[in-house]
């Protein structure tokens, strides 16, 4: 059983954001970290692999489309139990949208032929919640999005997803399949120093688009949108309550009583 886990190094903005042109945040205003949803999906993959018989040859492969910042995230995946990692990069992939990313990941999946693909339900920066399901579409895979619990029974999976309104739905599907994973499905492990060291020996390959039979122009053309500009929202309309905690509580109590008409 081979599980392909697509992960992303996400941008975390500094307190004060500055821009390099209309649609680009200055690199200086950004730090990088592994997407929280992807930590949960990697953990899901590692637990599934750990549940397999050794003879089944379970393998967890982490893949990331990203520049050199993505290596750190992939190293974290290796330390957390991935067997090997792949990084795909080409300068034409900068600011790739979910459909362009799915195009690249589909080419990786066609090479790797996994039984199961796991993606985070969303990324914390772009927050489209779309790449995984777009990938399932391109590969014509059965999929369930925003999964909060799973169980495996040989070639079948049971996945629980949350519906709007708080109801839960339990679905059964057959492998090969793709799931997008919600945080809270598990508590991702914190690798020990020893595991981090050992992970350095695991393979992390870097691929260009040509090696996947892709062309940068064609991948860009697959993008679903173009970012014209990035804006900071107008400062919030909130009237700020100042003073001590007791002054604030007094104002809140007054607002509550007035609004409720008590």
């Amino acid at each position, binding site marked *: 059983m081979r599980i392909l886990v697509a992960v992303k190094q996400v941008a975390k*903005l500094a307190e004060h954001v500055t821009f390099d042109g209309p649609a680009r945040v200055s690199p200086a205003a950004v730090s990088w970290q592994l997407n929280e949803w992807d930590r949960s999906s990697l953990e899901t993959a590692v637990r599934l692999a750990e549940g397999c018989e050794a003879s089944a040859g379970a393998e967890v492969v982490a893949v990331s489309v990203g520049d050199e910042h993505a290596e750190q995230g992939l190293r974290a995946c290796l330390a957390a139990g991935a067997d090997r990692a792949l990084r795909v990069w080409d300068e034409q992939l900068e600011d790739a949208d*979910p*459909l362009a990313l*799915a*195009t690249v990941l589909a080419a990786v999946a066609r090479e790797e032929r996994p039984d199961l693909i796991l993606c985070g*339900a969303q990324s914390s*920066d772009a*927050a*489209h*919640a*779309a790449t*995984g*399901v*777009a990938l399932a*579409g391109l590969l014509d895979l*059965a*999929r*369930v*999005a*925003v999964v909060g619990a799973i169980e495996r029974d040989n070639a079948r999976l049971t*996945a629980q*997803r949350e*519906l*709007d*309104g*708080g*109801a839960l*739905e*339990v*679905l*059964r*599907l*057959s492998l090969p399949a793709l799931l*997008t994973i919600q945080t*809270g499905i598990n508590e991702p492990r914190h690798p020990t120093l020893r595991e981090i060291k050992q992970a350095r020996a695991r393979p992390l390959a870097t691929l260009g688009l040509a090696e996947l039979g892709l062309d940068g122009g064609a991948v860009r053309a*697959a993008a*679903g*949108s*173009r*970012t014209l500009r*990035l*804006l900071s*929202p107008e*400062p919030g*309309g*909130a009237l*700020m*309550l100042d003073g001590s*905690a*007791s002054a*604030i*509580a*007094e*104002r*809140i*109590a007054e*607002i*509550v009583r007035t*609004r*409720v008409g008590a």
Partner: protein
Amino acid sequence: MSGVLVLGELGERGVRSSSLELIGAGRMLSEQGAGPLSVALVGQDAEASADAVDAPGVREIVVVPSPYAHFEAHVAQVALEGLIRVRRPAVVLAAHTSDSLGFVAAVAARAGVGFASDVSGVSWGESGVIARRRCHGERLIAELDFPGRQTVVLLLRTGAFEPLEAGGGGRAACTRLDVVLEGRARTERLERREPPAGDVDIAKADVLVSIGRGVESAEQIPRFEALAERMGATLSASGPLVEAGWVSRARKVGQSGRTVAPRVYLALGISGAAQHLAGVSKAKTIIAVNSDPNARIFDAAHYGAVADLFEVAAELERQFG
């Protein structure tokens, strides 16, 4: 290649309220020059729900009959692909909901159409549709266009658009589009679990005391429960507390939780992630207390205080003692 097609959502109790928001946004685009507005409904009882989407400005209601009694993502995918192929709309509007997240991006990737999700602003101009969406934890707004795309599919954030109430329409034609959906399901529903009964209905509460990550530990929950009770309020929570198992699922506000409409929503230690804000847009008054002056909740709130929530909670206990 013209016109706006709204993909209505049918829930257990008919057309979902988010669909009326889509119709509101669709009517606006139509008036700005995107072409006539039609609404599609996919489902076993789709035809019976047609009246519920017959709002002013809706030219046509397209019913796609389905052999399936409930939503299934792969079936919905085939239906939407059929609608796009036959109707060739310039813009498709669907709701950014749990159901849509399971298939709309797949349709977009396969059909090679324009696509954006969690869109909170749209307009139509000379270059077609422009979409605005929040990103980076609500801290930035991205403005997007879709050059060269004949069709653009947008998932609209629930609560971000004014709903258009059905009624006063009555002029929409109702047509039927047959798409072969039989046998297209690829998941089997084993069970549907309703939110625990006998628990609260936060959607009906007048005052909500809502807590988020700022409460720091499970041991603090009873204290806020007691505070809510003293205030004559109901306790609710943001997603992370529910995922951590500290607060029951029935009390979750936001996407994949409940949409609430209290007179007062007091948010304590909630940062204001998009998923959460989607559930509070109908609150009459939002008061936010957070120690982080940059918390996104302050953009959505009417009143805000940058303060330690435990200190404020202690003082509130005194105020409502």
